[in-house]
Each structure stands twice: as structure tokens, then as C-alpha cells.
């Protein structure tokens, strides 16, 4: 019997799409900032392309950073599917399913386990994604702090500049952008695969919040 279950609460969904949009904008503008591939031959006083790219990049960075903070907060106050326990396979139960799910992905098992929230392998990949967001946010805001000789930004993130130096920070910030691109490819495929194989509205679920339960448990 198909049962409708409200899995993804509004903050989780808003976080998801805020991150989709901000990462897309950040990757494009960030790539331009790292390697300005468009040169504007017009009158200098009439153009502000790099200026806009940076302004948009910084604006999107705040959406990205705040979205991350909201999601971390919601881990502790949201429903069971939003919990950090859905990301890290720490319980013996989740760990067992982690093995089964991984075997299924590697064509070593025929049966696809069913879950209402994240499957344990996907959950762990989101934990890794969280680390990527954290590092990207720290390196990004450290670079944002660079023009400030003192004040809030320098106090909050300047220590990273002292510790690692600008070149390393920019290198990591740039390299992680490509990891986000690779993550996007795999994430999109996995979502489509889950939607097709589990037929539980994995894709529409992140819009409506509702998934279908047609398995007896989990």
C-alpha cells in the first residue's frame, strides 16, 4: 500500500534549492574572478564587469553560507530525516544498511534497500558535502577578509590568511569548485536512479517534501 510521508520539511527544501542556485552562481562568477575569460573593450568608465561579478559572487556567498548555517541548525531541531544521524552511519542499524546499499551500487547485491530519508551511502556523501561547504566557506570568507586591514572580517577569518597564505587559500577555493561540479554530476545521477528504481518520488520530493512509502519498514 502506498503511503504519503512528509519527509523534507520546508527549511530543508529551501536550503537545498538555495544551495543549488547559489552554487551555480558562485561557480560561474567565481570561475570568472579566477580567470576573467571575457575582456570588455569598451570605455573603461562605462563598464564594470569584474565589479559586478565580484558583487554577485559575494552576495551569493552569503546565501550559501547562511543556507549552510540554517541546515546545520535544522539538523538538531528538525525531524528525524533532517537529523545528522541520517548523514553519518553511526548506529549499528544504519551501518548495516550502509553495507547493503554500497553492495547494491557496486552490482554485488540485487536487492535495493528502501529508506524514507537519505540512504546511508547518500547520507555520508552529504556529510562529505558539508565538509566541502565548510572549507569553501572558510577559504572564501578569508579571501573576502583580505582587503580589510582590521575589523570584523579580519578578526573572524584573517587567521586563515596568516596560517595558509593567500595563494594556498585561492588554490583550495578554486579546486573545490571542481569537486562541487563532480559532486553535482554524481548527485543528479543518483537522484534520478533512486527515483526510477525506488519509485518513491525522490526527485519531486525535494520540491513538495513528500515521498512515498511502499516498503513495509524503514
Amino acid at each position, binding site marked *: 500500500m502506498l503511503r504519503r510521508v512528509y519527509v523534507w520539511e520546508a527549511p530543508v527544501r529551501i536550503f537545498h534549492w538555495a544551495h543549488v542556485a547559489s552554487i551555480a552562481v558562485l561557480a560561474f562568477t567565481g570561475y570568472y574572478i579566477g580567470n576573467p575569460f571575457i*575582456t570588455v573593450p569598451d570605455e573603461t568608465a562605462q563598464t564594470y564587469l569584474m565589479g559586478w561579478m565580484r558583487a554577485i559572487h559575494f552576495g551569493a556567498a552569503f546565501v550559501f553560507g547562511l543556507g549552510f548555517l540554517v541546515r546545520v541548525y535544522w539538523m538538531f531541531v528538525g525531524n528525524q530525516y533532517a537529523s545528522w544521524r541520517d548523514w553519518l552511519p553511526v548506529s549499528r542499524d544504519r551501518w548495516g544498511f550502509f553495507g547493503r546499499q554500497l553492495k547494491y551500487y557496486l552490482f554485488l547485491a540485487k536487492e535495493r534497500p528502501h529508506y524514507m530519508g537519505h540512504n546511508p551511502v547518500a547520507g555520508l556523501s552529504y556529510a562529505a558535502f558539508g565538509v566541502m561547504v565548510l572549507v569553501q566557506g572558510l577559504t572564501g570568507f578569508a579571501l573576502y577578509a583580505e582587503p580589510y586591514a582590521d575589523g570584523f572580517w579580519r578578526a573572524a577569518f584573517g587567521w586563515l590568511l596568516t596560517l595558509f597564505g593567500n595563494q594556498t587559500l585561492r588554490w583550495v577555493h578554486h579546486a573545490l569548485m571542481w569537486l562541487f561540479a563532480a559532486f553535482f554530476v*554524481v548527485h543528479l545521477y543518483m537522484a534520478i536512479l533512486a527515483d526510477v528504481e525506488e519509485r518513491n518520488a525522490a526527485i519531486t520530493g525535494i520540491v513538495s517534501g513528500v515521498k512515498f512509502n511502499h516498503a513495509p519498514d524503514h
Partner: protein
Amino acid sequence: MTREQIDPLELSLTGGEPFNLVEALARRGVSRREFLKFCTIMAGVLALPVEKASRIARALENTPRVPLVWLEFQDCAGCTESLLRASRPTVGELVLDVLSVDYHETIMAPAGEQAEASKAATVEKGGHIVVVEGSIPLKDGGLYCCIGGKTAKDILFETVEGAIAVIAVGNCAAFGGIPAASPNPTEAVGVADLVKDVPVVNLPGCPLNVVNLTATVVHFLTFGSLPAMDHLKRPLFAYGKRIHDNCERRPHFDAGQFVEEWGDEGHRLGWCLYKMGCKGPETYHNCPTVRWNEGTSWPVMSGHGCLGCSEPNFWDTMTPFYQRLPEVPGFGVEATIDKVGLGLTAVAAAGVAAHAIGSAVRKKAAGASQEKEE
């Protein structure tokens, strides 16, 4: 950045014969008018209101002579060259000379034991300022830099004894500089790594801009204190602003107008050197405002990117000088981060495609076995 203000230091230098700077300068052909112009320039460099120029003039006229001992260790004498750069001596240089310099290995007349004796006499009296050029090697007991049978480290500690302040000029003395670049074969360090009980001022740059040294000394003589400094012990008047934020090419950066190749159309039009690896966005220094060689020009003005020479370990952290980003280690000489990143994404896409085919095959096989069972 924490603003580190050194407590005002008492000028206890009243000993010695009475000294009149203006008269001493006049003997060298510097008119009072030129002297006042110099004081105004110093007020500008120190970011003081122009009225302070008269206070500087009064202070310099009445100040007792502060002896200055200039030491050279692992260096190229480039900072000394910077001090002597002009085709004719400038007023600032003369002020520094008549006011201060007692001992300078490269330019003083005495040599050998005579020179050492004059240094010893100055140090014995105390109350002097020590200027250090070049880094200090520590490996193997510091034997990689010895002068008169003593290691650089010993000479440094001997000379700063009783000194009011130590001014580390150039990147080598401030942060270890080029001798400290990886793999740092002599374990070279900067002055502030060793000297802890005498205030240290860092005036990095490769070379030092002598305007900043003169201004630091003038600040000290006028106010009796060292200037406010940043977390790297660099005076804020000279290192408080980013090159990028004061650069005359900045409008081209904001507009999106970049030099792509040396000598191209953009280069001839004076566009931004960002894509040529300019490190102006990472570097704090007053080059765009005070410039070099009596305000003639500075690297970016002449069409070359900034190398970041006033930042710690610039030889390691600002390279490659002519690229925005370092290469990816372990991927060969020409592997840029974008090539590797694009490759990674392509591998992910290929893996996904292969997995999709595998999943389709599995589904078909499962369907076939189900049909069989039926």
C-alpha cells in the same frame, strides 16, 4: 590586524655635543626651504595632517643626534642600493646621513678594526637604532654568515644590546626573504624571530623603499615613539593599504579589461595585470602612492605585475609570479587546476554513464528472470 602601538620611548640622548641639523644640512647645500619641503613630504608619507609638517621641522631641528648602526647579513646589498639610489643625494638621504648613520659596512670610509671600533663605541654608549639588512642563518651554529670571525647571530645580539629599536629593512631581515625560501638551506630567519627584548619594526620589500625608513626615523624623532604597526610589525602608514586598492590600473580590473600577453593591445593601453599574475591584490605596501626613485614610477606603473615582495615568504607563497594560481602538484609541469578539475568532472560523468548502463542491464536481467519464473 591588531594595531600594535609601541609605548612612547624616552629619548635619553642628551649626551654628546650640541647639534644643529639645519646648519649641518646648510653645509651640504640644503636650503631651509628644501628642508621644510622634506618635512611636508614626511608628513604626507606618515599620513599626518599637513600642519604636522611644522612639528616635524621643529622636532628635527631640536632633536639630539640618534646614532644609527646599519648591519648587513645574508643580503644582496639591494636595500643599501635603494638607500643610495639617487643620482644626487636627496634631502631625506642627507637627513638620514647627518642625523644618524654611524656605521654602515658598505658605504663607510673606515675598514677592518677601525670600523669595528667605531661600532663598538656607538653600541657602548647605547640609545642607538640598529638597522638590519639581510637574514640571519641559524644552521650549524650560524657559520654561513660570519663577519670578522663572528656569526651574524652573535653580531646582532651584541649590537642590539642597549638599542632603542631595531628596524629590519627588506624582506630578508623582516621575514627571512630569499635566503629563507624553500628549502632554506641555512635555516635563515628574520630579526623579529630572534630579538625579543628590543622593539622591532619591519620594513619589508625587495628592496626596502628608503622613504619608509626615513619616515620611520622621522616619526621616532618627532613623537618619541615608533609608528603604529600591523600584526607583522609593519608600520601602518606604509603597509596599511593594499597595492590593489591604490593601484592606478584598478579601474581596468573592475571594468574587466586585462592584459593577456606581454605587449598586446591591452598592455599598451595600460590595462590590469591581474591575469599576468600580479600579486597586488595580496600585497600591503604603499608603492602606488610613494612610488620609487624619487616618485618616478613603480613596477605596476611600468607595466610589470607586483611580486608581493613585502609579504612573508613571498618567494614561496607568491610564485608562480606570472600566473594567478600555482600548478597542481604531482600532475606535471603544465597541469593547471582547471585541466585537472575538468578531468575530474569528466571522470565522474563517465563513471555515472557506466553505472547507468550497468543499472539498465541489471533491470533487464531482473525482468527476464521474473518472466522466466512466471
